[in-house]
């Protein structure tokens, strides 16, 4: 496969054969080496062949092989000729990250961090097979799928200020639970308000470095040592089932002939099935927003209980990194609405975009990039340049480099816990095996990923957040 170097951090697969557009990869030569070892580039090329794709098939710095689309893939499709694909969103619909800032400094928390973590572990259900606190009726669940985080706020979880500080204000308006299967509802009922397992986590962090003090202040960060809380989770079994259901429905309607990978199955955006998937996907997005809203509320409760107050625990932002949306972008010199797929990629709107909260309209939106377990996470800011470079998108995390199987062979959960403790990081988990699988050595270097985003200009560094307490599912 031809790979052309555009500059030190930008690579292109030129348009060839059935490709309708070229593919662009943002990576340092070190990250590129990793990407070349799996099917990421082939998958980016496959995406470039899909009907109605606009401008470019993009690959973010943290990319790795997915199914159908690569993880870290960004693609926009024309509304008339284009397609929508469950494989371009991923199984964990609206997997995303929420960040809270606090008025606490490290010294307020150091002695109490073990207790804080223990209490959070008690309040927030996590891990495999852990049910939520509420037994929901189907009627209530449908309400949640329609209203997202708004439902949670109406029911006493958090405040309306949180909604303003959430992508889409915590509610995708096109959601229609009528297109969510009974099976997906059944999976969603016991899991609302749960963190889940795998790479999902909740961290108590401190601000470890500030790179852009002016923007940091806009985001509510005043000084190093300030305590933050990060929540990373998604739509659980409900979202997974929506993806599985529509992959199958699309296969049965359109067939799989000619697809280089069955996970690339798609439907025309204008088809009834394409629309139904979109409305079901929006419902799953809303479930995930409600989920993070509830978890954030419980975390505030715990801080109030253990530290005496939760005043000042404001939400910096909540971002989705597995989603398809209708967005306006500048293509060939004119503004057009497209169906934008971000799979393992974060929206990175710069200043002026009407979709972002008013307080961020002159700075650009906060972009939250979680690191792997026990390493640093980063807060970035969206840029105007990202519009031209990546349809306003950047990385979503560290990205795996080692299989879970290999990680299990190399690491032991208890050993990782001890090593983190030596670094001053408390760890709680429901599974030591899960901890070993998520060992930070199994991930790309998040600092390198963030550096590439910063230097390419698709998301600029604002602050570095280091963990003090980690809760893993």
């Amino acid at each position, binding site marked *: 496969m031809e790979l052309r170097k555009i500059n030190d951090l930008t690579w292109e697969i030129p348009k060839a054969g059935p490709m309708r557009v070229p593919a662009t990869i943002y990576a340092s030569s070190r990250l590129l080496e990793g990407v070349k070892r799996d099917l990421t580039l082939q998958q980016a090329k496959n995406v470039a062949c899909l009907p109605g794709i606009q401008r470019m098939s993009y690959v973010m710095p943290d990319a790795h*092989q997915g199914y159908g689309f690569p993880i870290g893939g960004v693609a926009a499709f024309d509304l008339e000729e284009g397609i929508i694909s469950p494989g371009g969103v991923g199984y964990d619909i609206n997997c995303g990250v929420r960040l809270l800032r606090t008025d606490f400094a490290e010294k307020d928390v150091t002695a109490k961090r073990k207790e804080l973590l223990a209490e959070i572990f008690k309040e927030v259900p996590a891990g495999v*097979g852990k049910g939520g606190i509420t037994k929901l009726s189907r009627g209530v669940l449908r309400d949640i799928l329609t209203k997202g985080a708004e439902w949670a706020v109406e029911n006493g979880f958090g405040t309306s200020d949180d909604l303003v500080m959430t992508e889409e204000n915590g509610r995708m308006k096109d959601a229609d639970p009528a297109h969510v299967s009974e099976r997906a509802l059944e999976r969603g009922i016991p899991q609302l308000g749960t963190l889940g397992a795998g790479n999902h986590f909740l961290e108590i962090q401190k601000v470890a470095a500030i790179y852009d003090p002016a923007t940091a202040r806009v985001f509510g960060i005043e000084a190093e040592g300030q305590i933050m809380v990060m929540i990373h989770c998604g739509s659980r079994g409900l979202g997974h089932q929506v993806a599985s259901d529509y992959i199958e429905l699309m296969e049965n309607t359109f067939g799989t002939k000619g697809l280089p990978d069955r996970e690339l199955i798609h439907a025309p955006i204008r088809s009834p099935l394409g629309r139904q998937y979109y409305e079901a996907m929006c419902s799953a997005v809303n479930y995930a927003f409600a989920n993070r809203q509830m978890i954030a509320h419980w975390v505030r409760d715990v801080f109030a209980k253990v530290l005496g107050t939760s005043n000042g625990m404001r939400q910096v932002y909540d971002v989705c990194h597995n989603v398809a949306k209708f967005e306006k972008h500048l293509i060939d010199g004119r503004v057009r609405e497209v169906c934008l797929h971000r799979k393992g990629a974060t929206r990175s709107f710069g200043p002026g975009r009407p979709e972002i909260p008013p307080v961020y309209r002159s700075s650009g939106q906060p972009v939250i990039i979680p690191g792997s377990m026990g390493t640093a996470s980063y807060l970035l800011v969206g840029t105007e340049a990202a519009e031209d470079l990546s349809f306003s998108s950047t990385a979503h995390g560290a990205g795996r480099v080692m299989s879970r*199987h290999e990680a299990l062979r190399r690491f032991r959960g208890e050993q990782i816990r001890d090593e983190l403790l030596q670094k001053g990081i408390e760890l709680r988990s429901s599974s030591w095996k899960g901890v070993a699988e998520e060992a930070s050595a199994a991930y790309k270097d998040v600092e390198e990923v963030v550096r590439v985003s910063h230097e390419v200009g698709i998301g600029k560094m604002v602050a570095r957040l280091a963990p003090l307490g980690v809760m893993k599912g």
Partner: protein
Amino acid sequence: MKKKFRYLNHTADAKFQAFGRNLEEAFANAALATASLMWNPEKVGPNVSYPVAVEGRDLEQILVRFLEEIVYFFETKGFLLHSTEDLRVEKTPDGYRLRGVFRGDHHSADHALFGEVKAVTYNEIKVETGEGVTLQVVLDI
């Protein structure tokens, strides 16, 4: 005895091959490979049974749907698979049908859970028939 299944290297997810002398045996082994990522099937008693029946347009689709049943039964009924019984794959006018029984038990404090399978994918899926049957599946975990 020939290996029932083996895990292959995959960056982000779990990929396995399951083997059998025929489709039914390979499907039964694929079920064990899937369940083994979440709990140890040998440590679950065969105390409860659920009938399972799936249809699909091709063998790949019934394989995906069959393995999804394991995740679905676990998430909605707290059911942990020990083994499958009486699996039968039949050709239908529109494709294939699989019927059989899941044996296992409901989750209790005695059972250790150590992983989550989110979904069964079509990525790199293979159903190879010949001398024996080899199935290949990537699970999103």
